[in-house]
């Protein structure tokens, strides 16, 4: 129960209220071709997450899956301004971050099915993804742990003398870990090109932000450390992309770290495909239904149709194309072998030579 003394305020106002921001997007003069590509990627993410959820229900996927349905626009908007030479780290809910970098779909599905052909050779599962070719440097589920790894990658980029950035994705729950404050301070002091991205979906695994923080705007932590920050509707790919461009270009130009707070909502529970409406105090069937009206995919599709950039038939074709790719990846992965037990000890050490 809320303590009598605990007075939670909402600086996010309408951003945290699904009654607002549910009209078709303002396209902000952004390229229609880019936005159609973004739409295709968001559909890919949603299709993957829906199908992974199905496979989890069927017991075919055993590894814990943290689905990003409803949060697709955040990673897609940011990845527009990332390069394969950047380094992106993420946490437990990382499929969208990985996919939005155009990383290997087949390898992702195979890893979620824990097959030898997965991107981590079946050693990682859903929560340990990597695709260095695309810039995805790794995901791990220890909450907050990858925040300073992103700062470390930013330090490496600065020492290299390139215009690379280090990116870390995390959630509103991770903002309650002390490591965020150490990392923001260190990034500011070292003046490194780090981009902190918080997907504020208003819930930790188990509790409403209103019970966990005195205010729902997490960018106030960046204020406290003097780090440039922006808070946007995370279900608006145009708004996310605009903010990402501002912060990433500043970081690339030697302007130091940035902090992007994208307010969003997960349609599913913390883990698995169910909605978990019994979690937290506010989360209810009514609230989940309200947030589905602020659908990042539907709002973009509607705006593009309204602008005459795409037809409903073309959208259906785009969706079909993504679905076929995902089905093919699932079929291929299901035919692949699980890792050979004889390889159990491979890669414990990266160095060559066998210890006695």
């Amino acid at each position: 129960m809320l303590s009598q003394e605990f007075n939670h305020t909402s600086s996010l106002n309408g951003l945290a209220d699904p009654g607002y921001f549910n009209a078709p997007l303002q396209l902000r003069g952004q390229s229609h071709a880019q936005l159609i590509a973004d739409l295709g990627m968001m559909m890919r993410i949603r299709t993957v997450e829906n199908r992974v959820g199905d496979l989890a229900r069927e017991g075919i996927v055993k590894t814990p899956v943290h689905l990003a349905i409803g949060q697709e626009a955040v990673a897609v908007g940011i990845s527009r301004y990332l390069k394969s030479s950047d380094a992106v780290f993420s946490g437990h809910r990382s499929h969208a971050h990985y996919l939005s970098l155009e990383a290997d779909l087949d390898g992702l599905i195979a890893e979620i099915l824990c097959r030898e052909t997965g991107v981590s050779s079946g050693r990682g599962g859903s929560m340990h993804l990597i695709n260095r070719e695309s810039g995805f440097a790794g995901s791990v589920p220890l909450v907050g742990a990858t925040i300073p790894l992103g700062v470390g990658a930013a330090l490496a980029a600065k020492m290299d003398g390139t215009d690379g950035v280090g990116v870390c994705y995390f959630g509103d729950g991770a903002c309650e870990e002390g490591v965020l404050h150490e990392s923001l301070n260190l990034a500011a002091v070292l003046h490194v090109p780090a981009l902190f991205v918080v997907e504020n979906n208003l819930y930790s695994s188990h509790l409403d932000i209103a019970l966990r923080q005195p205010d729902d705007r997490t960018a106030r932590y960046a204020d406290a450390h003097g780090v440039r920050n922006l808070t946007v509707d995370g279900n608006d790919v145009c708004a996310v992309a605009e903010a990402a461009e501002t912060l990433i270009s500043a970081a690339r130009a030697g302007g130091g770290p940035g902090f992007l707070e994208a307010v969003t909502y997960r349609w599913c529970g913390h883990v698995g495909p169910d909605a978990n409406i019994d979690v937290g105090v506010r989360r209810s069937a009514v609230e989940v239904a309200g947030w589905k009206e602020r659908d990042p995919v539907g709002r973009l599709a509607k705006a593009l149709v309204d602008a005459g950039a795409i037809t409903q038939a073309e959208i259906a074709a785009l969706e079909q194309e993504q679905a076929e790719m995902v089905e093919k990846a699932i079929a291929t992965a299901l035919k692949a072998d699980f890792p050979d037990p004889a390889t159990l000890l491979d890669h414990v050490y990266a160095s060559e030579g066998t210890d006695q």
Partner: protein
Amino acid sequence: MSTEIEYAEGVRQAFDWLMSNDDKVFAIGQGLWSPWYVGATMTDLDKKFGKGRVIDTPVSELATTAVAVGAAIQGYRPIVIHPRMDFMILGTDPIVNQAAKWSYLFGGRSSAPVTIRSIVNRGGEQGAQHSQALHSWYAHIPGLRVLMPATAADARDLLIWGTLSEDPVLYIDDRWLYQETGVVGDIDPERPLSSVLPNVLREGDAVTLVAASWPVKLAREAAEILADEGIAAEVIDLRQINPINHSVTVASVAKTGRLVAIDGSWANCGLSAEILAGAVEGVSPSAWKAQPARITLANAPAPAARSLEAAYYPDVERVVATARRMVRGQ
């Protein structure tokens, strides 16, 4: 060419060599510009290599350690300095959960070749949180190499080999050894850590004394005294405690039939227990002439008062008495 140097100078020479020969090496941690924290082990490195490569940090063990892990993943060879191991507990997630597992997690597609240098700094009535040697904790973790130099040569060479290794390494040096002198030869950087095996520092056939880091000094001094009494002790310096090599100890105990493990941490689930377990598993029952023994810290936090410290820490007398009793039966 051989010269005699102090242990602390061995550490400093390793930094100097690494930063002179590999532009991917940098040092980061608290107090690196001050002898107050790191003794004579990093003197003037910041002046020679610049404060951009010898980075003194805010009071943030966790972020500092993890930032180095992130830079290591991106191709650097950072050395993180924790001037006291007690404080390193605050920065343990990036060591245990991240660096140690990074290669395995991703099926060998990435690795985190970071070196964590942790200093054991105790005695002098510093009390329970300025005294700990926690190597046994970290040696439990697959994927993390744990190095414990006991000599000036190893103080230098293990830091070089550890930093150049593809693996994450915890290198632990002990301030009680800083003024110990030893002979060093030319630097040979091409040594994989899998080839760093225990050294037999002194041969003997009556009893085997096994230790790592500072207690090796106790073992060597005890062996001198025991020799005067006609007891030939064999002294083994483990050097690397994860992965641990038991074969040198096993071969020695098969010869002597007697084993004393000496460790500067606690007994339960500690390095001394691992030494005994390896010997018990590897040495034939018929070869044992006495039950093996352990000499460790008392099972308590470190006390401050000098009278209690004297009872708390192992000393040469205890090693001599234990070995003598084992050999002479009295």
